[in-house]
């Protein structure tokens, strides 16, 4: 692998830095690495990553009471064995269940990285039916409120019926599954 800075020598220093939530990987030769004071250096990947992520992660930790904090840091994902401390060092979750286990920490973390805490993009085609219906209901509710505000009660009633219809469809689905 060739150095990112001089483009000449073999790169043997690997850096990961997070700038505004974007993860950047940088590879430098020893020479360029020692000359640069833009970053903090270390050949140990985790060490540098820990420092760089710390800026994002530590405020979330500090905001909580220390007792809570202690408790939370002891929680370990029962599927992959990751602790929150391990996550904050690596910057990586170990499995999908980690998202449930560390749920109470994620709200502020995601807010800091993305400025948002609610997915509004694509939904899986095959298994995302429920969420699609939920979104449809929210959409219809908005339209119903609008209709009521415009005193168009006839339209509001039609929308209400549509909402009920989807509601019962969703319930049927849940009952069918379990």
């Amino acid at each position: 692998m060739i150095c990112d800075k001089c483009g000449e020598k073999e790169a043997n220093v690997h850096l990961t830095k997070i700038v505004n939530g974007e993860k950047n990987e940088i590879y430098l030769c020893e020479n360029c690495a020692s000359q640069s004071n833009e970053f903090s250096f270390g050949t140990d990947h985790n060490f540098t990553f820990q420092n760089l992520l710390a800026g994002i992660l530590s405020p979330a930790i500090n905001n909580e009471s220390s007792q809570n904090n202690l408790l939370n840091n002891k929680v370990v994902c029962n599927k992959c064995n990751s602790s929150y401390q391990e996550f904050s060092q690596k910057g990586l979750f170990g499995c999908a269940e980690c998202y449930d286990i560390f749920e109470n920490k994620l709200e502020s973390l995601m807010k800091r990285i993305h400025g948002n805490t609610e997915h509004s993009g694509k939904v899986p085609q095959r298994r995302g039916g429920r969420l699609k219906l939920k979104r449809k209901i929210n959409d219809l509710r908005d339209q119903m409120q609008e209709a009521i505000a415009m005193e168009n009660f006839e339209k509001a009633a039609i929308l209400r019926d549509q909402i009920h219809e989807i509601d019962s469809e969703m319930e049927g689905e849940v009952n069918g599954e379990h």
Partner: protein
Amino acid sequence: MENIDYSSHLFSEAGPEKDVIISSRIRLARNIEDISFPNKAKDSERKEIVEMTKQVIADQEKYQFNLLDLYEISDIDREILLEKHLISRDHAKRRVGKALFLNNKQDISIMVNEEDHFRIQVLSPGMDLDKLWKKANEIDDLLEENLDFAFSEKWGYLTACPTNVGTGLRASIMCHLPALNLTNRIDKVMGAISQLGLAVRGMYGEGSNPAGNIYQISNQITLGHSEEDIIDNLKSVNQQIVEQERKARQIMLNNEIDNLKDAIKRSFGVLKYAYTISSKEALQLLSDVKLGIDLGIINDLSADLISELLILIRPAHLKISEGRDLTNKELNIKRAEMIQEKI
């Protein structure tokens, strides 16, 4: 196991906005629900994912993929894939269960067991994000037909790194901005871009003055916006950059035409006759010549050739072309030869 096609077809096609935009890319991150992410998965689980992917791909007819086992292939082949931007640096590190599914045209690929189980990537020359999103979306559906992806109603598609969660979408554009750089406007433009939730970085080398004046611009935010909104945001910012760059080129043409012509033709001369050339110098001179082509100062050369050369002059490609390992000194000589063979 298939062999790698070392030639580059991708840049032999014309793409929209090609005077400024070299290529565009869409990447989607996905994971299988019941298996730990690659950083925690066992060797056997990662291998199982490769097998599952193989099956899904065998069961459909629309797309043809070749499977490259990144543990089995040679170091030089891994470097080649990296230089072609087909795999990430992270993925180039040898580990059991890492694989790449690649189509013949090399514009669609699926990295298996990089940071996430799947990284679907599609790329095209020029500016073509809408078409790319359509294609990536289709391949995502195709995988999802037979695989259960990790997805939560609140967080969307779950990824190993929290910076990818939600859509798992990274859209990016590689652009050539020599005039913005020469007229000292680049920092201002870049500053404005980073205010808009986009990340800018040099393609080759760090800092605000990357080799070859080539920049990569991509979305940073993946959660809370739809894929279409993320892409539209990048597209509109990009349109402004294209306009700014063209404006800066026009200003240079109006005020500095003689100096500009002289500088570009000198760079062309060095590329044509140098005996040895470093990659940094080559990137800079190729940038000058590309600008010359786009401005009509150099007429008997195609800009696509320059884009192709950006990849062909990199070390692993030169070594493959020579058929043996090369020292730094030999690389610089071979690089000059390669350039002269093409232009």
